[in-house]
């Protein structure tokens, strides 16, 4: 039983402002489906509802009953008018979970030539939008690619334009994605679901008077309307303080991640199992043990990419700190570290540490002058790498720019000496060594491991453990050649693979890759005859310090800061060689020497190695040295 029926095109349509009020709350498709008389009439469903439907008690969507609402809210009855509109204005109406845009918009891709198909059943969304929300002429003028392909502007906006935040008409602003989620109804935004995405629209708040004032100034400088006089009203508009809309700065996400102003900030690229991350976590633990509040800023990975970090044992101290993923809050590029510097300037920590974060190094390099007026800046560099294109580390790039403002912090003496040789004459706080901290096996556990090793059979082929990240710069090619030189021995490789074993030179049948070891200190290496470390360059490798707790003979490439902790009486160093074959031969000879030594010699070396680690790398020593660094 249809109300008075007039063909929609002979009537005055609802104005744009009225339509905007209902968008997201009036379900076009549902209304037509449940009111066949409206469908048959080809009336605009919203216009029908506004003019007749609510008076007749018809529901605008499955969840809203006008009659029930009025009984529950007498003020609505008193006010008169459409109960749904009353509910929307009072914030009592939930946006529809589905709506006509979602259900009825056809979905041709922009690349499809030719006009889009008309929606089959009723003219509602498509027709309504075509006249009121989407200004077809302006839309086609602004997007000439559509006109060239004969694509219907309404269809384009419904399927693609809204995602690109294209305005459908000069008077309507559009938001999508996170911006739509944050759009506030009290600011006039109407949110709706559109093809599985949230979209928010609102009538632009710019008044005609302001446009007139701008227009009057064109007398003095016509270039102010270079964009086109009519287009000024349709320009992107945003609130100056809405940094999310303005600059893609999600300050809300950043600020909610900070429980209170931090005393110290540690800047890291990601929260993975790595030496730099462990080093930073140990610094955080030492600082927090003195009552400092620590904020960790992760600059490369997003929160989603680091989602499993809380399960990583070496990062456990960071669970007591505030952790913010910078890219999650500020996804836009910040190549100069300007935003990070501004943030640090705002929160004013006492100490800032940067490890392996390009963004952090840039911020210190460019803004260190001002940041260092209130914070002690520390930039960590663990190695200068090897001087070929791929082996270049941040240690070769940034210290020259950061050392003027920041303490150059490293975990080993060779890197300190190399940096001092390069930049020692520049003014600045200088270069300091903070050796890494390592957990140690208890005396009882260590002696038990030694005892188990001593009791094992010594005849036959040997079994060697190789533990590290399995990548070329850890000397996998050397290991491959070494395994070929010692076919009777077995080489057990523990660590995450960066590529297929064959691509890393580990195709020999006596090399067995076991994958990553969750906890090197707790793992059982008692059945091995020794630990082999073939790395090409290092700072101070944690894995060697941890392997010293297993009582194994250690055959180590003479790299990084290992000689700062161990001597030739503790471990078996193998001199570096640029030739992998020569290096493999040197390792082969070292392994043969190790195999020929009496067990008592192994035990004595293992005990000395453990003692050396205890002296230099205990948590207590680390905390004391850190305080000296900060002093």
């Amino acid at each position: 039983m249809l109300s008075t029926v007039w063909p929609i095109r002979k009537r005055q349509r609802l104005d744009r402002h009225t339509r905007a009020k209902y968008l997201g709350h009036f379900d076009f498709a549902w209304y037509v489906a449940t009111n066949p008389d409206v469908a048959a009439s080809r009336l605009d469903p919203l216009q029908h509802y506004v003019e007749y439907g609510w008076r007749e008690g018809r529901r605008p969507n499955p969840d809203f009953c006008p009659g029930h609402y009025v009984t529950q809210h007498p003020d609505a009855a008193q006010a008169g008018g459409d109960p749904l509109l009353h509910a929307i204005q009072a914030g009592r109406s939930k946006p529809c979970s589905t709506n006509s845009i979602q259900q009825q918009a056809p979905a041709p891709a922009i690349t499809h030539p030719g006009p889009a198909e008309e929606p089959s059943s009723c003219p509602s969304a498509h027709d309504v939008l075509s006249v009121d929300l989407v200004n077809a002429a302006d839309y086609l003028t602004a997007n000439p690619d559509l006109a060239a392909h004969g694509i219907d502007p309404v269809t384009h906006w419904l399927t693609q334009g809204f995602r690109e935040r294209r305005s459908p008409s000069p008077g309507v602003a559009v938001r999508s994605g996170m911006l739509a989620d944050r759009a506030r109804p009290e600011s006039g935004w109407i949110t709706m679901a559109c093809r599985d995405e949230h979209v928010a629209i609102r009538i632009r708040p710019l008044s005609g008077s302001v446009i007139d004032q701008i227009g009057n100034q064109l007398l003095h400088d016509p270039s102010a309307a270079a964009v086109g006089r009519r287009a000024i009203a349709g320009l992107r508009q945003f609130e100056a303080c809405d940094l999310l809309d303005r600059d893609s700065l999600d300050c809300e996400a950043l600020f909610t991640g900070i429980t209170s102003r931090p005393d110290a900030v540690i800047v890291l690229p990601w929260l993975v199992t790595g030496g730099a991350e462990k080093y930073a976590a140990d610094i955080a633990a030492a600082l927090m043990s003195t009552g400092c509040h620590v904020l960790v800023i992760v600059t490369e990975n997003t929160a989603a990419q680091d989602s499993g970090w809380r399960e990583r044992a070496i990062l456990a101290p960071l669970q007591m700190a505030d952790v913010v993923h910078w890219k999650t809050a500020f996804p836009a590029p910040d190549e100069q570290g300007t935003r990070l510097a501004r943030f640090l300037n705002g929160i004013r920590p006492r100490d800032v540490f940067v490890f392996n974060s390009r963004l952090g190094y840039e911020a210190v390099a460019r803004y260190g002058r001002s940041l260092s007026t209130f914070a002690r800046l520390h930039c960590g560099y663990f190695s200068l790498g090897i001087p070929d294109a791929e082996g270049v580390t941040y240690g070769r790039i940034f210290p020259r720019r950061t050392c003027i403002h920041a303490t150059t912090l490293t975990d080993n003496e060779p890197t300190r000496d190399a940096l001092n040789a390069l930049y020692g004459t520049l003014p600045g706080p200088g270069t300091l060594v903070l050796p890494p901290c390592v957990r140690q096996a208890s005396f009882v556990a260590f002696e038990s491991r030694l005892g188990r090793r001593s009791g094992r059979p010594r005849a036959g082929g040997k079994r060697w453990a190789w533990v590290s990240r399995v990548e070329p710069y850890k000397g996998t090619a050397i290991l491959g050649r070494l395994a070929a030189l010692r076919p009777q021995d077995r080489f057990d490789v523990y660590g995450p693979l960066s590529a297929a074993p064959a691509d890393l030179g580990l195709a020999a049948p006596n090399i067995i890759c076991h994958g990553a070891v969750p906890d090197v200190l707790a793992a059982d290496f008692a059945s091995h005859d020794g630990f082999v470390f073939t790395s090409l360059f290092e700072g101070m490798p944690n894995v060697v310090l941890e392997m010293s707790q297993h009582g194994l003979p250690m055959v180590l490439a003479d790299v990084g800061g290992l000689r700062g902790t161990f001597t030739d009486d503790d471990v078996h160093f193998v001199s570096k060689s640029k030739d992998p074959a020569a290096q493999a031969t040197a390792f082969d000879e070292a392994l043969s020497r190790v195999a020929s030594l009496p067990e008592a010699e192994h035990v004595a070396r293992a005990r000395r190695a453990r003692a050396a680690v205890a002296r230099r790398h205990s948590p207590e020593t680390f905390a004391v040295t850190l305080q000296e660094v900060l002093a």
Partner: protein
Amino acid sequence: MIDIGLTIVFHREGALAAPALASMADMAKRTAAAGVRVKTRAILDRPDHDTHRIVRKSGAWLDDIVTVDCGDLGATRNEGTRLSSCSHLAFLDGDDMWGADWLVKASASAFTAGWPDDVVWHPEWLYYFDERDFDVRTAGGLPRNGTRSFLMKHMASDSPELDRRALLMSNFWTANVFASKAIHERFPYREIDRSSGFGIEDWSWNIETLAAGVRHLVVPDSVHLIRVKQSGSLGQQNGVDGLLPAIPDDCIAWFDEATEPVATEPATMPLRRAA
């Protein structure tokens, strides 16, 4: 009688000074016609020859033209404060334009009953125009993709949508403000200190005044037209120089406090005082 010191600051604007002065003249006439006494002044800080010549010629109607040797935007504005004897001051940048009613509306807002004197007034709208948009110009009502010009709306400091901590990340308010001389004397602009890396005088000034409890409010239905420079803008130079805004110690507590409006009074405009 209300009197306003209207000061425009020039450096090396060259030909852009002419439309700025013409726009300022419109505004001054409109303001005087509304019964507000306006003292107009141009301050040229180390101007180049063209700018000097253009201001002398196009600004012959000004009450005063002063050349100074500050070499700093903040110091130049401070000089403007010192030179003015008016109770309220408005500063303009020498390459912008302004809605002709800016001062009429700003003074009406400032002198409306209920507002204290320690308020900084900003235009409601900013039209950032970029001449490069000529390349994507349109006769239609919707700008084409790639358009650089935009409109920005100022928000009052006590708006619930404004998180003052975000002011530490980016500046909310432009420098073309209207405020009492007393505020400018209490909070002089900081000069750029390149040795310490602090500067950005207008941003620092906004932070400092807000931290001190000064309210930043907007004048409804007003607009400034701001020219987007292709190069040589102060913002670009600040990045090159590695400058950060100076932040008073009071602001540090912003991160320790819950986000609250700075003031408790409503942000909406009260009724104007009856004539």
